[in-house]
């Protein structure tokens, strides 16, 4: 959008034009960073539930002094220095894509949207998410209802009152919405944000590090940037299937390590490719000290490892991943690792024709994490293994 910013600079300075940005991103703080980095000084509003019904970005609309739409298909490459006169005197050929008024009569969405970020929004989500789920269940062909349910699940996952399964529920709801309307690119991007590299139209948030560095250099202080990015959100697009590396040796092939019962909470989520129809997915594995368990990561010894056994006929880009060394002896951070998996129909090259999977088309991926942890209650530190399963079920058309 810098091009819009530049084109409109003089008109804004002369008070001839107001620029108002609208974003549909899940996380508004990322766009705050982007806007500060690019010097956008105009207001930007947040529409995560896509109440505006936008189908694709970018787009621009010219609205005159009387609130009348004068153009709905503005493109910066068509605009010259006299674009204000051209745009507002004589409408261009247009094909508006938005619907108005926005559907703001939905109490739960408005309550969530206008709640203060943090505890108030967490409470709004906890209170209203069941209603959104009920609405989506009652109207299974309502794509917006399903998309909005997914947004709410992901919001709750990102907040302090996340429930187990929220991330996967978000991905499932978005996939259901997209199946209803495959041309809805706002919905598609939500899945791609967390999905495999071959499905990414661009690296979603790879610009963040440069933005932070530039703002530090410009302002002499680190921007207030607290949001955590997943690896998927930083990943570069890749044309073609994930490259499969040497899997190495399973760290506990015989299952000898003591199992963790409740010290650490583990959650997984799977985002499938949305574009090619290939059974390619990005598997998210997240571990954190379980609430109330009084457990912590013990970083004095070897780093945490996560191993994934590729189901028959499937391949994993890298079966063994390690969590980077942590300087503190004890810590409590959330640890997220991601894998990309390739199913047999994607031409992974090792399909036997008799692949694992049940009659619903679901294949189960097995894995485990190995880590050192300590617990306050008993004052003990041990080496533990936590097993997990991931259901791989490619979405059907």
């Amino acid at each position, binding site marked *: *959008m810098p091009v*819009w910013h530049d084109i*409109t600079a003089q008109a804004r300075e002369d008070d001839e*034009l*107001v*620029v*108002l*940005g*609208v*974003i*549909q*991103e899940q996380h*508004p*703080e*990322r*766009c*705050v*960073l*982007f*806007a500060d980095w690019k010097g956008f000084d105009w*207001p*930007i*509003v*947040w*529409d995560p539930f896509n*109440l*505006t019904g936008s189908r694709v*970005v*970018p*787009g*621009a*609309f*010219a*609205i*005159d*002094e009387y*609130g*009348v*739409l*004068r153009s*709905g298909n503005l493109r910066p490459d068509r605009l010259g220095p006299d674009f204000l006169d051209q745009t*507002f005197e004589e*409408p261009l050929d*247009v094909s*508006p894509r*938005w*619907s*108005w*008024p*926005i559907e*703001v*009569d939905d*109490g739960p969405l408005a309550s969530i949207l*206008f709640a203060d*970020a943090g505890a108030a929004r967490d409470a709004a989500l906890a209170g209203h998410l069941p209603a959104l789920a009920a609405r989506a269940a009652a109207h299974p062909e309502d794509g917006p209802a399903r998309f909005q349910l997914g947004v709410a699940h992901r919001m709750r996952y990102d907040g302090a009152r996340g429930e187990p399964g929220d991330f996967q529920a978000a991905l499932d709801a978005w996939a259901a919405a997209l199946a209803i309307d495959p041309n809805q690119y706002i919905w598609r*991007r939500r899945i791609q944000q967390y999905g495999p590299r071959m499905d990414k139209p661009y*690296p*979603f*948030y790879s*610009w963040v590090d440069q933005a932070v560095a530039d703002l530090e250099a410009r302002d002499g202080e680190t921007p207030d940037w607290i949001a955590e990015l997943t690896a998927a959100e930083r990943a570069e697009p890749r044309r073609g299937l994930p490259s499969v590396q040497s899997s190495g040796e399973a760290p506990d092939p015989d299952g000898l390590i003591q199992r963790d019962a409740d010290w650490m909470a583990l959650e997984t989520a799977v985002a499938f490719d949305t574009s090619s129809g290939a059974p390619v997915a990005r598997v998210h594995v997240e571990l954190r000290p379980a609430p109330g368990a009084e457990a912590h990561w013990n970083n004095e010894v070897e780093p945490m490892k996560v191993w994934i056994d590729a189901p028959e006929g499937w391949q994993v880009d890298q079966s063994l991943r390690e969590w980077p060394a942590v300087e503190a002896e004890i810590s409590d951070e959330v640890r997220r690792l991601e894998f990309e998996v390739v199913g047999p129909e994607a031409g992974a090259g090792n399909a036997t024709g008799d692949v694992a999977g049940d009659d619903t088309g679901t294949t189960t991926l097995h894995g485990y994490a190995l880590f050192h942890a300590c617990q306050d209650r008993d004052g003990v530190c041990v080496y533990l293994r936590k097993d997990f399963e991931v259901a791989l079920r490619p979405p059907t058309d």
Partner: protein
Amino acid sequence: MTNIRRSLVTLLAAITLLLPDALGMTADDLLPTRRPPAVGSPFGDLVLPDIRTGEPVDLANFRGKKVLLIEFASW
């Protein structure tokens, strides 16, 4: 702030109910199918939170000025 938001939500609900009449449509016209505004037609109302402050921004507050409304993403 709570009262302001409550008023806002109420106002938004009222706008949604009333505006169809203003446009010669029924609520049923609006809800199942989202209709794009035609060029030359009122753009309608838009109230959403500012990404920096969380405060509601109302498009109606810009009446009397030309507005370029840009939808975009940081990615």
